[in-house]
């Protein structure tokens, strides 16, 4: 019934969708899968009219939809539950259920009629809510269910669920799946986008996998697939040639005396529970997991941004980590975020000013006088050694390409000679060539004895640059992969299932991973 044909979309020079066909049929649940950046979100946006494709056609019941907009999509019965929660936090539950289409009576909003329509929908989802409660008072999982309820209130014919379970606990997921099956029996066509592959297999009829903006697997019956096969399709057989895999040494136990970054029984609410890790000098630990699994929380703890409720972090020099970001930076911790425009660079300032920001300005290592000439000179050295492509160090950073901007971020940290390098998706949005150069920089840091902890949305990247990968599930380390057992496929599988593969040495004995749903 809803059909997309030959959809193309590119942002700037980057192709998000390169001619994708996709169709949802009445009464089926169609899974749309793929890695981050494979094009799922873009396709969803095109389907619901939030984004106009560069080329291609959309048809609903055989009739072409031209100048497709979200308003039109809603009118025609296409509803979406998006990944980012789109509720109005200040308004109450009822008002959130009928945005822009409140039932009216004599020009006024008819709250009783609204409540009458809302109740059955909420009951179906098992949501027992006070309709007058402001949404901001609701916990995250209830908000997510509320968003689903809002979509259901429109009586959709096509329902797009984009990561609907990311904030839900197991029981709510089961209930949602029950509703999804019931809707599909009522001839609603459902598109189900999720990272939780087991959820997908539990509820979907057909599966489409996107890879790098193209269809890798087109509408295959879910019954013929396993988590394993899906992962293989998501990754494809190409392993980027630039990722000259380092010799993944098999992880050894770390002697108590050796310099290492140690996490000792670190607990943060329910996000991290009694995590023990030790990364010796010169080693690279990858941390992986689905959203909210705790791997990024670990980075925040190591950066001093989050204070653990229990346990502690000890730096390679034996000192416990201080309180706060600045203390951590003074102790030699460096933080490189993939969101470089927010956390990394000053776009309106020249390269030399950015490179001096940590050492000369933040840590005042040049004393009480900052000489621009000296900063320029040192910046020139970094521009040379890191291969930052720019006519001069006086160039504004905003004028550089993404890869070169990120190299400026690396330069400002190398300038301060850190002992620990925390990398949160360091090559996000960077082209392949610059990625390879950044990997080389990281190897160089390893040789200098810098400890590195890396989170990445790309499991291939983790497999390529890490000595070992700790996979998180529900706030615990559920497996540590290294040597031959370290590959993108295994990482992706373990982070989705929470179970160490049989052939890997898990740490399940010490710290049991989360119970599989």
């Amino acid at each position, binding site marked *: 019934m809803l059909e997309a044909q030959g959809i193309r979309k590119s942002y700037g020079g980057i192709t998000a969708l390169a001619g994708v066909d996709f169709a949802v049929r009445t009464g089926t649940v169609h899974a749309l899968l793929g890695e981050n950046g494979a094009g799922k979100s873009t396709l969803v946006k095109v389907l619901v009219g939030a984004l106009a494709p560069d080329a291609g056609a959309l048809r609903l019941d055989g009739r072409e939809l031209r100048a497709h907009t979200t308003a039109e999509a809603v009118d025609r019965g296409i509803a979406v539950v998006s990944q980012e929660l789109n509720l109005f936090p200040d308004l109450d539950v009822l008002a959130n259920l009928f945005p822009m289409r409140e039932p009216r009576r004599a020009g006024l909003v008819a709250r009783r009629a609204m409540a009458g329509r809302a109740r059955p929908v909420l009951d179906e989802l098992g949501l027992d809510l006070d309709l007058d409660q402001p949404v901001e008072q609701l916990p995250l999982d209830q908000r997510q269910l509320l968003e689903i309820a809002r979509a259901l209130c429109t009586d959709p014919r096509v329902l797009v669920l984009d990561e609907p379970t990311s904030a839900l606990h197991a029981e709510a997921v089961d209930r949602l799946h029950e509703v999804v099956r019931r809707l599909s029996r009522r001839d609603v066509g459902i598109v189900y986008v999720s990272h939780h592959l087991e959820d997908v297999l539990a509820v979907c009829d057909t599966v489409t996998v996107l890879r790098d903006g193209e269809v890798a697997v087109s509408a295959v019956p879910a019954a013929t697939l396993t988590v394993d096969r899906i992962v293989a399709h998501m990754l494809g057989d190409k392993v980027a040639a630039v990722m000259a895999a380092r010799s993944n040494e098999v992880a050894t136990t770390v002697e108590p005396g050796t310099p290492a970054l140690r996490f000792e029984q670190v607990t943060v609410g329910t996000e991290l529970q009694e995590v023990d890790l030790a990364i010796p000098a010169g080693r690279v630990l990858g941390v992986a997991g689905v959203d909210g699994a705790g791997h990024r929380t670990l980075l925040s703890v190591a950066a001093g941004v989050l204070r653990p409720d229990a346990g502690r972090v000890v730096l390679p020099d034996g000192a416990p980590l201080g309180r706060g970001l600045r203390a951590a930076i003074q102790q030699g911790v460096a933080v490189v975020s993939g969101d470089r425009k927010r956390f990394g660079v000053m776009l309106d*300032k020249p390269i030399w000013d950015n490179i001096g920001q940590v050492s000369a300005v*933040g840590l005042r290592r040049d004393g009480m006088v*900052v000489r621009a000439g000296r900063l320029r000179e040192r910046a020139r050295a970094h521009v040379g050694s890191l291969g930052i492509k720019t006519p001069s160090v006086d160039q504004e950073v905003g004028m550089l390409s993404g890869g070169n901007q990120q190299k400026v971020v690396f330069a400002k940290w190398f300038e301060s000679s850190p002992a620990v390098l925390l990398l949160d998706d360091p090559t996000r949005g960077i082209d392949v060539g610059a990625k390879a150069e950044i990997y080389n920089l990281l190897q160089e840091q390893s040789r200098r004895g810098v400890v590195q902890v890396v989170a990445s949305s790309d499991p291939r990247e983790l497999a390529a640059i890490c000595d070992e990968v700790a996979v998180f599930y529900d706030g615990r380390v559920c497996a540590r992969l290294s040597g031959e057992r370290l590959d993108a496929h295994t990482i992706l599988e373990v982070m989705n299932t929470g179970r160490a593969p049989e052939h890997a040495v898990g740490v399940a004995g010490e710290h049991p991973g989360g119970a599989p749903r």
Partner: protein
Amino acid sequence: MQRAGRLVLGQDFLGVLVATVALVLLIGANYPRFLQPDQLASILNNAAYIGILACGLAFLLAMRELDLSVGSVYALTALACAMLVQEGLDPWLAALLAIVVGGVLGLVNALLIQYVGLPSIVATLATLAMYRGLTLALSEGTQVVGPPIDSSFSQVISADVLGIPVPGLTLIVVAAVLTVVLRATPFGYRVRSIGSNPEAAAFSGIPVGRVRTQAFVLTGALGGLAGVLTIGYLGAADPNTGTGYELQAIAAAVIGGTSLAGGRATIVGAALGAVLLGVVASGLAYFSVPINWNQFALGAVILGAVSLDSFVRRRRRRARAAAGPRL
């Protein structure tokens, strides 16, 4: 020579410099008396108080903060100085303490912003009224006489050096010193870093809260300095003095080329901005514009200067966008 030329042309305060010189020449062409050194010195002198306040505000604007209480700090510190002299303190010591009082008032602003979590515009809007109210209450609404005219303090402040009255000279010194602070110390770099990208600044080890506190204390202390100068020059503290100075000082900083978006500032520009406002005010008198039109004319000048600045910046941004990101 070429290099020096480029140095001048690249400055943010170039616009205000050109405008000020042009305006002075324009008035001078019609009324040559205006170009007499004593006339110009008197304009500089009258601009000194707002100019000093504007220098502090330039720091705050550079880090995306604002202090609306500077005019009230100015009045309250002037009163404090006068009252301390009335208590029998040595005028020099009283002046020093009044500057410290200014710093403390700035600290109060900073603490409200830091610990109560108020935006600076709201916190200082409140202290604008509170400090002014304190001034009125303590003075009981009347003028308080300061140091006697024959004291060494008053003698020094009302003296001339090379034909320039001391308050004007102080503005020049303050602008020079603060320019060095802004351009060549870690504090100055930190202020501009925070204004450019506060999160990246925090993620570079810059203690954002502490730098903000320092900047507010500096602004308060400069308010105190301006207050002390007025006491030394006029000999008495009027509780209503400096009303509306906060807006004129902000205008001076912005006219000078300091961006409200943060990240960059020019101290020299802020001082020149105050001078330009002074030139406009006295120019109007020369052209015998009725005094009731003064406010309107000042507003028009501010609007014109800021529009020009915005126009130039948009042109520059468009040029940059056309160049596009390069490898």
